[in-house]
């Protein structure tokens, strides 16, 4: 890679891009007005009309408040775990680049184990495995934490946070390692302390480089949230499951659920596009 100027941000990881919609995938407004697209849109409209007309949607009004509440729970899960996970991911990535070897090995093992097992299994391990162990210790039962440990959402938050941190830790490791050494040397030459250098140069540059992948991972995190419904957290997926069980209607609620997730993803991706456009591309 000699002579080629380094791009300011690394392009998002191929796999992340393949699995999650990113801002660059959003269509532009005028791209809808090509002749064949107008025909396709008309066909889609007819299809949507048929779905709306011939299928059963009379259950929606009754469940509307619950659906709204479920969407809020889903979004709360997404943002809380993405933020907490990112806070954990920074040290996880950093120690893998500069840490002493025991810490490095520990961080690497953690990332390998979490990334090598299904999230659903981790979730059940925490909720049913660890959760059934806690009450055997009277000390835990009497502690102030017990009212929270009785609920299911802390386990959901914990599992999603750990998973996000492990995937994001790998991304941050690459981002920290990818910050040009010259920039760090320049910072040192200015007499910055290690902490100042980290805070002012290394971390912001690494985050900046990792942004496209971070966006993708956040979309993937949204796609992972419905798993918490399997441990009795009432998110939007769980509300739809309840509709299915109450009414014995299978397809309509699932179609609505897919539509809800597509809207949520779309809004999330548009927010990222807005943010990406706001962030100045330094050094370009």
């Amino acid at each position, binding site marked *: 890679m000699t002579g080629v100027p380094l791009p300011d941000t690394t392009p998002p990881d191929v796999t992340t891009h393949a699995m999650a919609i990113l801002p660059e995938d959003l269509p532009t407004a005028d791209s809808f007005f090509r002749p064949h697209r107008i025909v396709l849109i008309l066909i889609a409209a007819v299809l949507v009309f048929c779905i709306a007309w011939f299928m059963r949607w009379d259950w929606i009004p009754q469940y509307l408040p619950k659906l709204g509440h479920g969407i809020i729970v889903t979004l709360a899960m997404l943002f809380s775990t993405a933020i907490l996970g990112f806070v954990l991911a920074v040290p996880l990535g950093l120690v893998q680049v500069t840490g002493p070897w025991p810490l490095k090995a520990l961080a690497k093992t953690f990332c390998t184990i979490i990334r090598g097992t299904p999230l659903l299994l981790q979730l059940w391990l925490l909720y049913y495995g660890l959760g*059934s162990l806690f009450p055997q210790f009277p000390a835990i039962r009497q502690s102030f934490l017990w009212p929270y440990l*009785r609920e299911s959402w802390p386990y959901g938050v914990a599992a999603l946070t750990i998973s996000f941190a492990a995937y994001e830790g790998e991304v941050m490791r690459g981002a920290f390692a990818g910050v040009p050494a010259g920039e760090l040397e320049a910072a040192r030459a200015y007499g910055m302390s290690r902490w100042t250098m980290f805070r002012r140069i290394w971390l912001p540059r690494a985050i900046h480089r990792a942004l496209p992948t971070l966006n993708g991972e956040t979309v993937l995190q949204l796609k992972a949230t419905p798993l918490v419904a399997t441990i*009795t957290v009432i998110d939007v997926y769980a509300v739809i499951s309840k509709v*299915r*069980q109450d009414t*014995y209607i299978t397809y309509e609620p699932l179609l609505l659920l897919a539509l809800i997730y597509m809207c949520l993803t779309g809004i999330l991706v548009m927010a990222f596009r807005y943010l990406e456009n706001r962030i100045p591309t330094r050094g370009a």
Partner: protein
Amino acid sequence: MKKTLKTIALSLALGIAAAGAASADPIKVGFAAEPYPPFTSPDASGNWEGWEVEFQKAICAEAKLECVITPVAWDGIIPALTSKKIDIIIGSMSITEERLKTIDFSDKYYNTPTGVIGPKDVSFEATPEGLKGKTIGVQVSTVHQDYANKYFGENGATVKEYQTQDEANNDLAAGRLDAVQADAIALGAFLATDQGKACCDLKGNVKDDPAILGAGVGIGLRKGEDELKGKLNAAIKAIRENGTYDTFSKKYFDFNIYGE
């Protein structure tokens, strides 16, 4: 490259076709893919055992049907029936008005009261007053869910819904629930385990409400399959009369599970 691709595509197509052809004829018997002792539970060699498994074998033998056991997810068992992934349900499903709108049932093959269990160190009654302010666990899509919501949920209790009975029992043992409402026999089986003995005991049976709790458990089948329904009803009657039903029931229960 082309050849390999063709081979893969062909073998996939054949695989799906073969999978279809192989299981075209036998009756697929659906029930929940989870431990629900003493009715259906997996053993360590991967087979299913329990009272209901024996009942199903007896019925299929009596009606001269070739049956295959097909465990499915409980919360999708009725869609699985209507979309023909399974042909009949022998899975402790109570006959209720609500379900009869979507599927059909054979005559009942057992009937038990509904019980409520709770932690040993707390005492309360299985009544709306006794459960006020408590969190009660039930399995989704069951008569117990409907009953608990109507009688306890609307009287100040929190009803928490679980995908499987096993999860609800486990959460009671883990201290996350104050009570669990379910079939009295299934609860009895749980109370007999080490986990159940250590934590909980029976608080009593709930007041009956046949409109919700139904008129016993029947074999679920698709609407309009009256020939199959006739065969199943005849088989239930036959094994009741020739003693087969009592023979295998005695292995599990010391009371009359059929009810009156």
